[in-house]
C-alpha cells in the first residue's frame, strides 16, 4: 500500500497546527487546505481530517462559508474514504447541535444521526471537562481501537457531547458525572471527542489506526 495522503481541513477553527504536526510524525503525506480541492485534486487524498475547537453554530457557519460543507457531503463522502472529526469536528458530524444556536438547534453535517448537547453534570463538577479521562470501547471492537487498551486515558477539552440516535454509532464512551459518547463511527466516518494529537502515545496509536483504515 502506498503512503496515506492526509487532507487536514482548515476552516479557521482553532489549533489546526497541532493536528498537522501530529500527522507529520506518522508515515504519511499531510496537506492543510483552507479551501476545498477540485474533484481531480480530491482524488489524490486517501484520508480526510476535520479538526476544530469552538462552538457548534460558529463551526457550521465556517464550514458553509468556505464551501467545506458541500465538499464533505457531496464530494468526499462519495469517495467512501475515511473521514475523522476531532473535538468540534466530531460534533459537527451530527444532525444538529445546540451550542451557539440562537433558537432551537443548528443543523450539522448530518453524517451520523444524533444531537450535540451540553454535558449534564452535577453542580460539584466543573465545566468544561478538561483533562485526561478513560476511554471505554464497546464491543465489537472497531478498527479504530485495534491494539488500544480498555480504559486508556485520552486528553479531553469540551462542554458539549454527541448523543447518537442509534447506539450502534457510539463506539466508545467516557465518564464525567455520567457516561457520554467519546467516539462515533458510521461507515467511513469517524469522530473522536478527545484530542488524539494531544494524547501522547495512545493518541498516536489511534491516529495510526485511522491511517491504516482502507481507502479505495
Amino acid at each position, binding site marked *: 500500500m502506498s503512503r496515506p495522503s492526509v487532507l487536514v481541513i482548515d476552516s479557521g477553527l482553532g489549533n489546526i497546527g497541532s493536528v498537522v504536526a501530529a500527522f507529520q510524525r506518522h508515515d504519511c503525506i499531510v496537506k492543510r487546505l483552507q479551501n476545498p480541492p477540485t474533484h481531480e485534486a480530491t482524488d489524490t487524498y486517501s484520508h480526510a481530517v476535520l479538526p476544530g475547537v469552538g462552538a457548534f453554530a460558529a463551526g457550521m457557519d465556517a464550514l458553509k462559508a468556505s464551501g467545506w460543507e458541500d465538499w464533505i457531503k457531496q464530494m468526499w463522502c462519495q469517495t467512501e474514504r475515511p473521514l475523522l472529526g476531532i473535538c468540534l469536528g466530531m460534533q459537527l458530524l451530527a444532525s444538529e447541535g445546540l451550542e451557539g444556536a440562537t433558537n432551537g438547534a443548528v443543523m450539522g453535517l448530518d453524517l451520523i444521526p444524533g444531537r450535540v448537547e451540553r454535558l449534564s453534570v452535577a453542580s460539584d463538577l466543573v465545566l468544561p471537562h478538561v*483533562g485526561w*479521562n478513560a476511554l471505554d470501547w464497546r464491543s465489537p471492537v472497531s478498527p479504530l481501537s485495534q491494539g488500544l487498551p480498555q480504559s486508556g486515558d485520552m486528553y479531553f477539552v469540551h462542554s458539549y457531547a454527541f448523543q447518537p440516535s442509534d447506539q450502534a454509532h457510539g463506539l466508545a464512551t467516557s465518564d464525567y458525572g455520567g457516561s457520554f459518547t467519546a467516539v462515533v463511527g458510521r461507515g467511513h466516518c469517524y469522530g473522536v471527542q478527545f484530542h488524539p494529537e494531544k494524547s*501522547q502515545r495512545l493518541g498516536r496509536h489511534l491516529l495510526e489506526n485511522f491511517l491504516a483504515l482502507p481507502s479505495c
Partner: protein
Amino acid sequence: MLKRRLIPKLQLGLRHSFRGAQPVLVVTRQFGSRRAIGDPLSQAKIYEAQLVDELILVDLERTEESWPVLLETLEAVAEDLATPLAVGGGVHSFDQVQALLDRGADKIVLNSGAIEQPSLIDRVAAAYGAQCVVLSLDVRTCGRGSWGVWTKAGRLDARRDAITWALEAVDRGAGEVMATAIERDGTGSGLDLELADCLAKRLNVPLTISGGCGLADHFIDGYKAGAAAVAAGTFFSQRDQNPMQCRSHIYNSGINIRSSF
C-alpha cells in the same frame, strides 16, 4: 473518571551566545535567584516520555528580546510533542494570544496582562473559549486566610485580594486558575494548602496549585486540598526526582491520576 494532573513548569530565561539570544531552562527561588538547568526542547521531550499530563511554558524575561525566543521555542515544542501546552509570560495583548495559539499553544496563561486590562480575559474567552484562558495568580500571604496578588514576576504589589480577583477572572471567562505561592517557590517546603483549599472551595473551574513542592507527598497534599492539578519546576529538576516516580507515589496513595503504564 477525570484524572488529577501533574504538570512540570518550563521556565524560560535567555542566554546570549554568538548566535544571539538562546532560550535556557531555569528554576527560581522565591521568584528571585535563577539557576539554569538545561535546554527547554530536550527537557520537554523527556517530560513527555515520562508521561506528564500537561506542560506549562512560561517566559520569565517578558521582554521584547525574549518574545520571539518564546515563540520559536513554543513552535519547536509543539511540533515535536503530543502533550497539552499552556503558555504565557508577558502576554498583554490579543495579538500576542493569537501568535501563541498559531504556534501550537492550547491554553494561554494570563497574569499581569489580565490585572492591567481585565477585559483581555473576556476577549480571549469569547474568541477561543473559556478552556483557552488560564488565570495565573502569584500571591503572598497577608494574614491568615488572606492573600495578595503580585504582578511583574512577583515584584509589584497589585493591591488586589487573590480570591476576589480569581472570582472576577472566572466570571469574565477564565476556564482555569493557577495559583503560585511566591514565598514557597523553589523552597521545597510544601504547597500552601490553605490557599488551595480556599480557592478550590470558591471556584467552579479547575485549580492548579504550585510553589513549594519538595516531596512527592506534597503533590498528594495539594490534590487532597482540592486542586485538580499540581505544577512544579524546581522539584523535577532535582536529579533524584522524576515525574514517573512521583506519579507512582501519588497513584499508590489512592489519588485518581493516570497510571504510567
